[in-house]
């Protein structure tokens, strides 16, 4: 977060890669996907927990004349959202993240960068 001032005299291989536009783009891509997604599911989980903890009447509302409650549906909703985020992430990572990451890894290991 804050900038380092102690720049070593000799820059390492990894630092050169880190400064490269390819790596910066990869990093940006990763963070732009992963951080908002993490915030999303954590907030949704927290909303659920607070409702279950402090909104008993709302969570106890029956759906129709069954014994299924709003609380149960929201709880199951946590399962659904977890499965969905898992698959969305896996697809994104396989298609959008792996190809540039692999390309960069090969360049580093071949010493091309």
């Amino acid at each position, binding site marked *: 977060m804050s900038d380092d001032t102690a720049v070593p005299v000799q820059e390492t291989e990894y630092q050169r890669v880190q400064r490269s536009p390819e790596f910066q783009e990869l990093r940006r891509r990763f963070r732009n996907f992963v951080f908002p997604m993490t915030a999303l599911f954590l907030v949704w*989980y927290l909303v659920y927990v607070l409702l279950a903890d402090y909104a008993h009447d709302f969570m106890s509302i029956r759906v129709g004349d069954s014994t299924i409650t709003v609380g149960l549906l929201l709880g199951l909703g946590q399962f659904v959202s977890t499965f969905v985020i898992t698959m969305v992430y896996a697809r994104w990572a396989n298609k959008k993240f792996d190809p540039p990451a692999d390309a960069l890894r090969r360049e580093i290991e071949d010493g091309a960068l």
Partner: protein
Amino acid sequence: MSALTLAAGLHAAAETEKIGNPAVNIAIFGAFVAVTLVIVLRASRQNKSAEDYYAGGRSFTGAQNGTAIAGDYLSAASFLGICGAIAVNGYDGFLYSIGFLVAWLVALLLVAELLRNTGRFTMADVLSFRLKERPVRMAAALATLLVVFFYLLAQMAGAGGLVALLLGISSTAGQSVVIAVVGALMILYVLVGGMKGTTWVQIVKAVLLIIGAAVMTAWVLAKFGFNISDLFQAAIDRAGEGGEALIEPGKAYGATSLSKLNFLSLALALVLGTAGLPHVLMRFYTVPDAKAARRSVVWAIWLIGIFYLFTLVLGYGAAALVGADTIKAAPGGVNSAAPLLAYELGGEVLLGLISAVAFATILAVVAGLTITAAASFAHDIYASVIKKGQVSGDGEVRVARITVVVIGVLAIVGGIFAQGQNVAFLVALAFAVAASANLPTIIYSLFWKRFNTSGALWSMYGGMISCIVLITFSPVVSGKVDPVTGESLSMIKDTGIDFHLISLENPGLITIPLAFVLGVVGTYLSKEKPHPEKFAEMEVRSLTGAGAEKATEH
């Protein structure tokens, strides 16, 4: 809250009734132990290097490792503990399932792949990557041992309760012998099989457990015409007056504003704990690369999620068909809901099978925990801190094997103390320690450039110490008395001893934010020079996989 631990040893003396046929149960147990021993022996033939012993040669596929992760994660807490919590507390017990599952997203998105790319054997490899190695390794190893200790307590308590139910052994001495046998078996598996043997036992066990739970779930649903609403209605009717509380939130945690804070604390510990559990993190090293680590987490999330949906049905099924009062009065208490349901459905044979699966579950999880603790001690404390890296792989593995024996003995002793506590609840304590001591440092060292050694030590020791202090002075250890019977619900059974100071049963609500803050404070208070070159290496390696440890060839 009290209902969760209500069963604590109140009934042992009065209850002599056996459920099922001990001969059948022992025969099924014996068969399982024999089969898994063969697997372990076969797997052990390829154990040559430290790579093999700790990381199974990094040669497992994503699907295999995902199943093993599920096997590792779906412990006695998930099966016996959650079923019991839902059967007795209804909707409030469901929180365990949700928290334990959603937590995997933290591991999937933020930790699994980056960790696989930067470490070798243990969590400490990653934490000490760009910080001062020895102090950070030491702290990470201690945190690992602490989490493993709480986790082991829970599994051993589950083993004791299960066997109490099956063999009708209600005396503490008898159960202690059983715990000792479980411990001895587990030591044997890990000594002989290493990570490979342990992984195979976990895979076999995960498959058995999920099939077993699926069969029981279908059976329960069939009894109610596949109508969930009817199942809930039956549970409500069975509970009698006030039974509606089973499907509403607040039965266990809704009484006071303090108990609501307990719920919040538990919820926080559950969701943030998984990504800091050392035995889960170590599993990411058993696969060839980060992609396989990702695949294994995707597999694990599906298996674990589906299993937790089963536990919802099983918990309410037990409430409807067995009844909460019967469950609480059985030897083994709340933890016996699932086996009792099996007996109700399919008689002594299904009880024997399900119990053997539950027993296998405990054995496999205990083995996974033990190898993690052993690796942590041998690799982090012995090889890196004591010997300063001047030790051969063989010497390290020898120390790891000795550690296995020591930990096995400690687990046996601890397990004898923890008998009767709800295992899901005990595991939640391990989650709180993992989320406080490990997760902040993992996140900071992966993503925060400025983070330094001092921040890591403040956060890890702060997390550990605050957890130990809060748990020690909580009602879990002393001073919790059943208002009806006047008996102790705490670990210390003497009601005359009461040194509890805080009423929070799970420390997560305080310790997790505290550890995150301490990481920042410690970082800014230190004059340590930053190491941009180490951070560059870590960041580049974690995202691209360059220079990651490869699978070994056989």
